[in-house]
Every structure is written in C-alpha cells, then in structure tokens.
C-alpha cells in the first residue's frame, strides 16, 4: 500500500544577485527540485542517490515542510498533510520524522541525550509522564547503554550520535523516517552497525525509510527501490536490483560504474563522466545531463525527455536509454 505519494514537486529559490530584479521588479527563480514524482510503499526503503547539488537534500526538507515548495502535491496516507507554503499538520510530524546529515550538529548542544531523545514526547505527547523510562527504552532499542541519558552531545562519538538521532526519529513509532545521508562521515565498521539497526527497526516496526545518500554501495544493500537524481530531476527510478544490474539512463550507468571498490582487479570506469554538474542557474536546455553525456545527440539538447518504462521495468527519463551497461 502506498504510504507517500509525491507528484510534480518543485522547489525554487529566488535568485539573489547584486541587482537581481531590482529594475524589472521581477524575481528570478532557480529550480533546485523540478517536478519530482515518487511513490513509497509502506514498510519499504526507497533510496534517492545522486551527487551533491542534485537537490536530494532539498527534496527531503520539502517533504518535512522545512522548505516551501512552489508547485506539486504531496499525499501521505491518502491525505494532503500541508499546503505548499505552510507548516505541516502536527499529526503528520507525529508519523513522519527525519534523521539529519550531521549527527552531532542536529542535537541541541546544551541538552542531555536523555532530554534530546524524549523531545518528541514533550512536543507531541505532553500527557506522558515517565520520560525517563522512555529514554531508557529508546537507548536500549538503538544499542546504547542506559547511562548515556546523562551525557551531552559533545561527549559522544559520531557513530553514537547517529544512534541518538535514530532513537529520536523512531521515538513516536513513525510510519516514515526520512534519513538524510545516514552514514556520511562514518567508518565502514560503524556504518554497518547503523544500517543493520535501521533494517532491524524496519523489520520490527514496519517503518518506511526514504534514504538520501550518495553512497551507492549502501543503496544496493539497503533499499527496495532506487531513484537516481540529477539536477533536481529523477532520471531513473526502479527496483534496486534492476537499476544496478542494467541501468538505462547514461548518468545512472556512469554513476554506478564510477563507484569505487577495494576489490583487487576491480577497475572503476570514470572515463564516461567528464566535467561537473552544471549550475542550476544555467540549466542546460533539453536534457540537463546532455553536456556530460557520452551518448548525447542533437535531440537531447533540444527537448527534455519524458519518463518512459525501460526494458528492465524502471522509469527512465532519456531519449536514448541504454539497453545494457556499457561496461558489461
């Protein structure tokens, strides 16, 4: 059953330059997220992968009502939780929570861990009295010793702060957790602990995860479906195994091929991708990827491609989808 359904979501920021709009009185907008449509089923994980500047974090913030969106719609559990500009209903924030990118910075520095993880109760369940017991329950749930409740954020490690962030995100038994780069900056051994914990919570409480990440190795293991974002658009979306086995969009293919591996004899294929992401201020006409695309043709710079179903069953926005990965 579909839990979250996003249609044509667009987030724009006004351009602020030295004299922007000063003479004409018109504001220019730059689309950071342009026209995203997605469905997330209950109790599953959807990963949104892409490079920095692809708009994936902005998209996550828009879903939490932290950034207003210009157009599009959002349906959670059959209802629209909030208008494009406005604060989300409390009932929505009761069921949807977010894990932030920087684990230590997202914790109020002068509050104890115990106070921090019970903050959702103070906000949504003021009737609840025994917060100490709740704090203990949550700490145990994420595998931290119960005496951590007395510590302060600066006294714990990055991996532990992640666990605290996760404990706070699942405190109210939400149905959806939006995880923004849940493993960024973590060592591989600690990264596994956090991911295993997320998988366990999903199995036990049937919580859905919307995971924002640039780490494709993590995506491959953790998500049911994968969406690859480029310059504010989803270029390919489908079941994770199919997207990885035979990516149809040249960008998705290049990104997957560029993924480093420590296996001896593995050669990553970085040659396919030259240059860097274009500035959203000067979005290329047609397909935004065409200046970097190894398979670009005249049509690509003229019209933007519409999503179509690829041979593998994924939704691909490309005029000339690949039949097979170029390196296989």
């Amino acid at each position, binding site marked *: 059953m579909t839990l979250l359904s996003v249609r044509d979501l667009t987030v724009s920021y006004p351009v602020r330059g030295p004299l922007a709009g000063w003479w004409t009185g018109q504001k220019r907008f730059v689309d950071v997220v342009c026209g995203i449509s997605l469905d997330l089923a209950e109790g599953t994980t959807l990963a949104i992968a892409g*490079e920095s500047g692809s708009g994936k974090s902005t998209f996550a913030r828009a879903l939490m009502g932290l950034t207003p969106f210009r157009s599009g719609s959002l349906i959670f559990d059959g209802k629209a939780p909030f208008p494009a500009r406005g604060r989300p209903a409390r009932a929505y924030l009761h069921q949807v929570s977010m894990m932030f990118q920087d684990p230590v910075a997202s914790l109020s520095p002068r509050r104890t861990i115990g106070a921090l993880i019970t903050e959702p109760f103070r906000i949504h369940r003021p009737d609840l009295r025994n917060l100490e017991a709740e704090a203990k329950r949550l700490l145990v749930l994420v595998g931290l010793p119960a005496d951590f409740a007395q510590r302060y954020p600066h006294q714990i490690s990055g991996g532990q702060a992640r666990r605290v962030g996760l404990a706070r995100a699942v405190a109210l038994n939400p149905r959806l957790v939006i995880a923004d780069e849940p493993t960024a900056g973590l060592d591989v*051994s600690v*990264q*596994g602990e956090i991911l*295993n914990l997320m998988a366990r919570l999903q199995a036990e409480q049937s919580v859905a995860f919307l995971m924002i990440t640039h780490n494709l190795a993590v995506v491959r*293991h953790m998500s049911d479906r994968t969406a690859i974002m480029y310059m504010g658009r989803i270029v390919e979306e489908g079941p994770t195994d199919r997207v990885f086995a035979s990516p149809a969009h040249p960008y998705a293919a290049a990104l997957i091929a560029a993924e480093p591996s420590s*296996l001896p004899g593995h050669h990553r294929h970085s040659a396919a991708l030259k240059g860097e992401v274009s500035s959203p201020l000067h979005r290329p006409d047609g397909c935004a990827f065409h200046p970097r695309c190894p398979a670009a043709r005249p049509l690509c710079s003229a019209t933007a491609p519409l999503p179509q179903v690829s041979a593998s069953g994924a939704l691909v926005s490309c005029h000339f989808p690949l039949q097979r990965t170029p390196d296989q």
Partner: protein
Amino acid sequence: MNPPVLDISGLSIRFSGRTDPVLALREVGLSVQAGEIVGIVGESGSGKSTLALAVMRLLATGASVTAGSVRFEGKDILALPEADMRKLRGAGMAMVFQDPMTALNPVLPIGTQMMDVLFRDPALSRADKRARAVAALKRVGLPDAEQQLGRYLFQFSGGMRQRIAIAMALLQRPRLLIADEITTALDVTLEAQILDLLRDLRDEIGCSILFISHNLGAIAAICDRTVVLYAGEVIEAGPTAKILGAARHPYTKALLACDPSRIEIPTRNLPVIPGEVPDLSAPPKGCIFAARCPAALSRCVTHRPVKSLVGRDHSVRCHLIEGAAE
C-alpha cells in the same frame, strides 16, 4: 638504491592536555620511495592525520614526539631548526587537506595566494610567478586558467577547489605530497577525476605521494603500497594488491569484510567489528586489537606481537602469524 624520500621509524607521539596524556601514535614506521604512492588507511582515531601533521612538523601545542625519527631525503627533520623546516615546507613537501575552503584563504583571490607561495624565490619576477601559477592551474585541469587568477575560492565548485589546492601545493615542485582525506568530501565521479589527476602528476613530475584516507576504494585505485593503521599502530603494511587481496591481520580482514562494495549479494545484515577502539590514554599491554579480535589467544592479551615479514615487503604485527611462521 637512493634513500627513501620519507622514512619514518619508531615514531611515538603523545598528546598531553587537561586530561590524561594520550599516546596517539606508538612506534610507527613506514617509508615512501621516490615516485611512489603510499596509502595510509585507518578509521577515525587511528592517528593518520596526526602522522601527516608530524611529518610536516605542524603538530598542535601539547603534542610531543616521545621517540623515533622522521627522515626526509636522509635528513632528520625532527632535529631541523624551525627556519630550515619552513623552507622545506612547500618546496620539499607540501600538504593538501580535506576541505580547501578552510585550508585556503577565502578573502584573497586565488592568483594572489598562489603568487604569495612563490615569494621566497627572488629569481622570479612578478610575470614569472604569474606564469608559474597559470601553468600549475592548467596542469590540474582548470579551464581558462589565466582568467581565473582574480577569482575567489567560493566562486568555484567543490571539485575545482580541490584542484586549485593541489595546484597550489605543486607550485614549488615538492618531492613529497601529503594528501589528507582529499577526496572524502567529493562525489564519486569527482573523486575518480582527482585520483586520476594525482596518478598523472606522479607519472609526470615524479613526486611521491602519501595518500591518507579511510576510503578503501580510493586506496585501491591509486596506491602502490598501503599501511594499515589501527589505534595509533601500524598493524599491517605491504603492496596494495596484497593488503586488499590477501590481508593477513585480523583487523585488516575485518575492515575489508565491512566494506559493503565488496559484498556481492545484497544483505541487510552487514558485517561489523564488535567492540570499541581502546582508550589510548592507557593502551593495552598486548596486541592493540586483541579485545576485538575474533581469533585472539591468551598471549595476544599479555604480549605485544612483533612485526613479522610474511611476503616480499609485506609485514604484519600479529601473534597468529608468528605462530604460523614457526
């Protein structure tokens, strides 16, 4: 054979401050030959950045070298007067950091900063310095280098900033480049580009590179030899292919097993290394990894293992290996 460009032996570093003194590095030894790329891999707290700063002699106050030596082209740089050391920095060895936004000055144009680096060379005229800066920027693949000299760091994208930082480090043609987590903040496609650049630079100007990273994939991509650091000790060192393909130390094996990119079949139960890094204010008497080691013996807890050679240029510090050799 020429002496190695960098030769560190028995280096121990202690941090003392308000808390108990921390023995951040203990008897660390490694060498970098001319034109070689040596990787230092380790998790946070393993002391890899401390090692880099010790080589540059840029350790913060409170850190002191308690034993060992650092030789650069045969000279013991720990004994060098500060004035000579300053001359060596930049010209002999240069360093690139993780975040160019904090490592370079944000309020000076990049051209000014690059020409300042060359101030010490009286033989160079202003035009020469400018030409050198342009050449360095071109070398790292910055388009329209001449026009970019007057721009500021924030006007460039992340990948370009790191290229500028590398260009600046290479201005005085150092023999050793220390790269401390320089691709950590970059996306995979940019990381691949920067790694390609480093490899080309090595091939072209023959400078040695000490490449510090916690990213096993990046290490695999460019390093000739790799040193594995755990809690301030070198536990295994050898050719990169051996370290990543036929590791002998249980920690190296466990670390590699954790890398999700090495696990072919998707799983939601990823391997982890149970336990915590030991408290370095009172490091354990025996093997540094004993408490977390799945194969630890009783002597692992009581006796510190010695370094033993298990192959050409491949050394391991582990009792299990010693036993096998006997």
